């Protein structure tokens, strides 16, 4: 059985922060640490953190993720370091790093990692801003199939502060593979509601990720139609993230975020669309979202009694929810109770599926909860 420890520090100096974390961790895991997952805010120097962690806690594997905000238990932290350490018994866990220049080798790396684990139950991956998520998704599909059990958190060039670190090596893709004895379940939480009439993506340039026409009209017209005189405000303030588009698949809507409006009134997007697909405009309803979160967490708690929950949250979601985001994290912890540790980070986008046997897609604006039994 995997033993977990969770420790947090908001001390300013790296040495002091890690010292505090190390003391707390050693209390729970005095023998050895096989894996340390560290989320930290940009206030800390990654290389120094890595060095101190490796000499004080001596974990076999370290994965460090710099994130704009942290989730620690029931709160969102703007400055701090949080460390999840694991002591494995018969369980297998593999970690691999692929430099961004060697993205072509991602397929090989994924295969190698899965082979090493013999049978994998789940894969986690963290992507730096220099990685094109579509290339990466293609690599996953080629190596593991389009229904692969993987969850990736990534940062885009629009991100203000995030980077990905492995020791001194920056700009690497991090892969964490969990062997069959480690039981992890994941759920996607979204609060976006489809609204209005369906429309058809009539002209889409998938390669350049442009929606050129919707219902045979310039793509931008869909926003003009729904936003009326507020359209200009939205355009001026680049607030399209508030109203992503949704494509229907297996009765559910997958989010397609609009990142930019180009001069020819086409929309530069993040997500997955094929020409001819039906879509709707989506609106995030906070109350619905909180209800949804509550329902999912309650279900999973009763089903699996998780001991650890790692949250892969979304920056877009935080931008929209603002103070409600804090409320949501408080609610999650309250439902899970004292015995379940909660930790998490924020990402610009995710690659994952709603649940098993659903095709992997790139989305932003969703929150993924991973429940560790």
């Amino acid at each position: 059985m995997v033993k977990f420890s969770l420790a947090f520090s908001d001390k300013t100096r790296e040495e002091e922060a890690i010292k505090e974390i190390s003391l707390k961790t050693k209390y729970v895991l005095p023998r050895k640490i096989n894996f340390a997952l560290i989320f930290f805010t940009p206030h800390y120097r990654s290389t120094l953190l890595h060095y101190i962690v490796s000499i004080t806690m001596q974990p076999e594997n370290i994965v460090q993720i710099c994130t704009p905000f942290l989730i620690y238990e029931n709160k969102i932290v703007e400055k701090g370091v949080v460390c999840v350490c694991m002591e494995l018994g018969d369980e297998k866990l593999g970690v691999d790093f692929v430099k961004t220049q060697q993205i072509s080798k991602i397929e090989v790396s994924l295969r190698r990692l899965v082979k090493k684990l013999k049978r994998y139950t789940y894969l986690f991956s963290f992507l730096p801003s220099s990685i094109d998520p579509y290339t990466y998704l293609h690599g996953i599909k080629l190596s593991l199939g389009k229904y692969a059990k993987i969850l990736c958190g990534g940062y885009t060039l629009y991100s203000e502060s995030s980077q990905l670190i492995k020791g001194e090596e920056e700009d690497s893709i991090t892969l964490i593979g969990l062997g069959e004895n480690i039981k992890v379940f994941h759920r996607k939480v979204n609060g976006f509601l489809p609204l209005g009439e369906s429309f058809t993506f009539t002209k889409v340039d998938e390669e350049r990720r442009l929606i050129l026409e919707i219902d045979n009209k310039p793509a931008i017209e869909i926003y003009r139609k729904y936003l009326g005189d507020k359209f200009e405000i939205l355009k001026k303030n680049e607030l399209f993230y508030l109203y992503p588009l949704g494509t229907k698949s297996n009765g559910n809507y997958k989010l397609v975020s609009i990142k930019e409006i180009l001069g020819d009134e086409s929309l530069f997007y993040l997500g997955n669309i094929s020409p001819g697909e039906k879509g709707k405009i989506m609106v995030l309803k906070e109350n619905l979202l909180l209800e949804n979160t509550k329902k999912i967490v309650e279900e999973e708690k009763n089903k699996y009694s998780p001991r650890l929950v790692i949250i892969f949250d979304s920056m877009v979601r935080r931008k929209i929810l603002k103070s409600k985001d804090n409320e949501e994290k408080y609610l999650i912890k309250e439902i899970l109770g004292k015995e379940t540790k909660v930790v998490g980070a924020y990402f610009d986008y995710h690659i994952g599926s709603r649940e098993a046997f659903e095709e992997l897609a790139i989305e932003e604006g969703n929150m993924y909860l991973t429940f560790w039994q």
Partner: protein
Amino acid sequence: MIKSLTFINLPWGLTILLSGILCGFLFYIYYYLHHKIYPLKKDLNNLERELKELDHQAKLIIQSDIESKLYREAVEDKLKKLSFLKNFINNSLNILDRDELFQQISEKVIRDMGFEKALIVLFGTLEEKVNINFSKNESDVIKHFIERNRENLLSLPLVSPELEIAKELKKNLNFEEFLLGPIVSGTHIYAFLFVSKCIIEGGMSEAEKEVFSILCMYLGQCLDNIKSFEALYQAGEELENKIKEKTFELTKTLKEIEKISKMKSDFISSVSHELRTPLTSIKGFSSLLVAEKFGKLPPQAKERLKKIDDNVNKLVDMVNTLLDISRIESRRIEVKIAPYDITKLVKDTVDFLLPQIENKNINLNIDTPSSLYVYMDKNLIERVLINLVNNAIKFTPPRGEITVRCTKSNSKVTVSVKDTGCGIPKDDLEKIFQEFYRADNPINREVRGTGLGLSLVKRIIELHKEKIWVESEVGKGTTFHFTLTEAKNV
């Protein structure tokens, strides 16, 4: 159809019948379809209408959603900026130096409030007090604008790019969003604050304009506080300097007085010493002569010699008193403070002076408890009592009254000597303890004295760290009071 039926050679009657049946069937189908399809079509139309309505509702939902989100955004932005402003105010509230105040306006503070650049220029000299991210050229353009529009700016609380006056500035700076506001201290403009932000931010929000105005007002308020503090500080400094000056003068005078006093004491002491030796000799011989030890003297010579002897006695007393005062002043006197019964001392003193009291037919009252122990040097306090009772005898007319009283209050014992003499005028009351001072009254004119007795009395009481004071009313009498500390558990 009839033609076609005819064509297959059916009899006319049958043809007509079949045609009728066929028409009826077709009519039935038409009727059936019409009645079945029409409601469906109607339903379809209704559905389409409802869909349109739903789409319309969706538009309304989205528009109200964005309105509420923008409103919430604006409120949160305002709160956030106000919170930053509050922090800035907290950090700078107690600053009482202009330069230090301006140093507080850092790049972080400006960024927190939503701006990228800031400049503070003094209104009078156009000196830059704060420059955050403005190039020399840009700050020169702003200063030039202030210089050229001095008069117009006096009446404008806020200059934004929309104003006519700011158009030239906007053009010269190539800035889309900026604000210029006066920092008013008292009734005058002390400086101007200029802030700007980058183009992509989407314009100056209402929150930023409000925060900017508050910041200008707050800085003005701070400058007012600094001004008041400086005035107060300056006044304090002046006062302190004056006090120092006066203290110095007083110290100097005091030192001089002390020096003179010491010289005086030394002089009195040495003169008294020098006088005492020949006086002792004179006193000895005059006493022998008066006692006719060297032979009988003619009555006239004896009378003269008696006067000489009396005056020598007075001179000896005076020299002794002067020597005592001098000893006390120079702390050369040995004080032996011990518990002693003051009532006994009073009685002994009065007994010693009883002949003089009886001689003047004075009524004497002694009001003391049976026994009251106090801390004192018995010999010195005896001299005090002798002096005070003697004075009372001297100034009390025959058949007058003298009262000696001892009262106890808390741990203090007050000894009072009251007479029914001529009293001391108010103006003289303060001076009677000075050496050689003699109040102007008929008795003093008649009775000769040295003016040293009360001075010695005061010094002895002060040597005991006690108090002495006098109450007097001209024509009614005088009361001297002095305190001593009670000796408990004796």
